[in-house]
């Protein structure tokens, strides 16, 4: 049983948005809606500035508030691999999950009416491919794999790295990890 996870090596991101466009094509995401975004944040005063580029997507939490708050049982965490998914035919578009997600990872698909979000490109995984955003990531900033496999790209990326998750205090136990800084002294 794989335990899928993603690592975002922010040092290698160039905010080129290839992931965003690839995701939208791959998953027929409607105009003006997104399953993933790249945030460009700068702090400081000229010329002492610091930049953070951060890809955000569904964290496929091990403790997923969207699943707990779904009144119809449409949202679920798949036992086999830990991906948080949605049974479209059971979704009534009530937005409970949208409100519950602390990462703003969900939206109501305005063309189709149901809740929608990143699936780690479940359909591609079945074909042995990486998620679309990972496959096209120019900087190899997005890394995907099985946390249970010590040789998987995610495990190798996290080895010795100073990784964090978003909103750790929320207790959601995300499966998307962020590497911000070089672990060795620069």
């Amino acid at each position, binding site marked *: 049983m794989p335990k899928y996870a993603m690592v975002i090596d922010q040092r290698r991101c160039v*905010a080129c948005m290839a992931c965003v*466009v690839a995701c939208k094509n*791959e998953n027929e995401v409607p105009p003006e809606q997104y399953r993933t975004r790249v945030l460009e944040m*700068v702090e*400081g005063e*000229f010329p002492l500035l610091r930049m953070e580029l951060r890809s955000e997507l569904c964290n496929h939490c091990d403790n997923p508030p969207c699943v707990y708050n779904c009144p119809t049982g449409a949202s679920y965490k798949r036992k086999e691999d830990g991906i948080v998914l949605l049974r479209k035919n059971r979704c009534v578009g009530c937005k409970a999950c949208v409100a519950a997600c602390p990462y703003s990872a969900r939206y109501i698909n305005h063309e189709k009416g149901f809740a929608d979000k990143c699936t780690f490109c479940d*359909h591609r995984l079945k074909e042995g491919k990486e998620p679309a955003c990972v*496959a096209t990531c120019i900087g190899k900033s997005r890394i995907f794999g099985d946390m249970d496999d010590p040789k998987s790209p995610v495990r190798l990326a996290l080895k010795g790295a100073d990784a964090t998750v978003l909103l750790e205090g929320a207790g959601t136990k995300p499966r998307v990890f962020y590497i911000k800084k070089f672990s060795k002294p620069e």
Partner: protein
Amino acid sequence: MKLSRRTFLKTSGIATAGIAAATAGPEKFLLWAEEAGLIQATYVPTFCEICFWKCGAIAKVLNGRVVKLDGNPVHGNSRGKLCARGNGGIGLLYDKDRLKTPLINVGKRGEGKYRKATWDEALGVVAEKMKGIREQYGPEAMAIFTHGAPTDHFLPLLSAYGTPNVGMPSFAQCRGPRDVGYELTFGEGPGSPERVDLVNSKVMVLIGSHLGENMHNSQVQDFAEAIGRGSKLIVVDPRYSIAAGKAEQWLPIRPATDLALLLAWINIIITEGLYDRAYLDQYAEGFAELAREVSHCTPEWAAKETDLPAAQIVETARMMGHNAPAVTIHPGRHATWYGDDVQRSRAMAILTALLGSWGRSGGMFFATKASLPKGESKPFPEPTKASLNGGGYPFAGAEGVTQAIRTATITGAPYPLKGWFVSGTNLMKSLPNQQETVDAIAKLDLLVVVDVMPMDLTMMADVILPECTYLERHDALAIGKGKSLSVSLRQPVIKPLYDSQPGWWIAKELAKKLDLGEYFPWNSYEEKIKAQCKTGGISYDDLKKLGCLTIPDTSAPYITPENQPTFKTESGKIQLYSKELKEKGFDPVPVYVRHPLPPEGFFRLTYGRSSVHTFSRTTNNPALNELYKENEVWINANKAKALGFSSGDYAVLVNQDGAKSNRIRVKATQRIREDMVYMVHGWGSLGKELSRSGRKGADDQGLITKYAVDPIAGSTGMRVNFVKLQKEG
């Protein structure tokens, strides 16, 4: 009628008769049908044309509709990945605003009144006018302006017609001075893709180059890889770019003073003995003269000019020196800044030579010497009159000095120019001083534009010939010369939509009507490509299946005892001191000359790129427009506050000559110096035909009324304009 920009602006809003409304809405259930096993996808390899990097792509087709583009894993420029724009290629294919049928102008030029025509009629009109021009003035009275893939079809056509006049903005408005600067130093340019060995570098130096925002697929992959491997990055940029955000050393230089910094770096590397003595002894000449000429360029002197701390100038020079030769001084690409751009590029080349980085791992590598023969064609007629391409500039390249042809069109000297054939370039956005472009067009008997989208220049044409997109056509094979030779095929993924046609077909059919059919002796472009493959000894079938073939390497990228470099300079050595330049009356070693600074209340206008757009051509692409809908003017937050602007407000920019921009959103930010503003190039299109991007954002080119011509190469420096911000209305 004298057509001014103003009348064009006024009239461009008039409805364009003839552009049919087509239904190309997204087909929502294709992926569902695929998942349910009702339909099966087919995959077709080709290469991208959203920019000029020529990345291998694989198109996924469901039920005749292209639903996804992926990078081709066997293609060296994409390596299985596409950038946002490449991913967004489908947006162009299904853009409802595409040119759909040939159009013939029925109003005054620039009024935007067109009627639909058949191909036979439209090409007939063009042929008749071209014949008339040839009869009355001679074939040299036609000029071609071109860029990218269409060049392979229309340059032969115009050459067969007999004109020597060709202008590609890629020279005089972009790479020209850089290439000339490197050629004068090393005997060859840095190549395209630039032969930067970023992945093996220990230090990377970007001077005004904003990789990341400037999205050149494989190069940015290498850039990110290098950062991941711990290569140290030095970024010289007055703006805190994405690249600057990754830099170990960011040098927020005062614009227009880069040459002072470069000369100081050169001086430090010489005086501190950080240069590669053995390398220079063997391959270069003019070291003593160079050392003498730069001896006054101290860090303190440069600090005053550049507004950078002297200590940082010294520290960065040492970083380079201590890590040489694994230092990549990126040659940049768009180099037409201040009119002394050949000399600045030469300084970068000289610095590269001092560090011994040319032909070394981690610096600049050598291209493969292998090639694929082009295939025979009937020799073109010898032009009877001298070409105007050089514009009188001694080192102008073969791509032509566009604005010199424009000037000749206006003045009619040395001979009249009466027809322009334009393909793949929106001259209103690529050439500085739009009034001159408008004035030149007013002198023409014929303006023909081949394009996919109704861009500004397109909608000024007498006849518009709608080319289909790159996903619907064959084009010439792309021959890549990096560390190995690669051959890539562009082939149609689907049949052309509407009544659009491939460039090759348009050229061939027009040639027939001009009685030049014998220059296009094949029936289809595929036939021509097959013949070329046969001559070159590669399998067309494999190429068709894989999209790209990499020919086993015949070159060595680095200098070794067995692989000695050749320099195609006069003396066969690297020219630290250029006798060629001296002979023509130019400085043999670059000399820093101070450029005018913005007057009180004005800011220097600079421009650049967004990672999701390629100039103006992608602005209307729904997939990309969504991510960046209009450009913004970046201004230092303190300055914005003093002027009463906040982020998100609209402002109007007025330049030193009174030229006014469209309204543009303000981005008040700490990420930029106080003496300049910045915007993404390509916005502020004039027409309503672009339903998403028309009239959105401001056009930097509209504010570039002044340009500084480089006396060496004839290229136009375009960062010499000053603007002030005004409130709307």
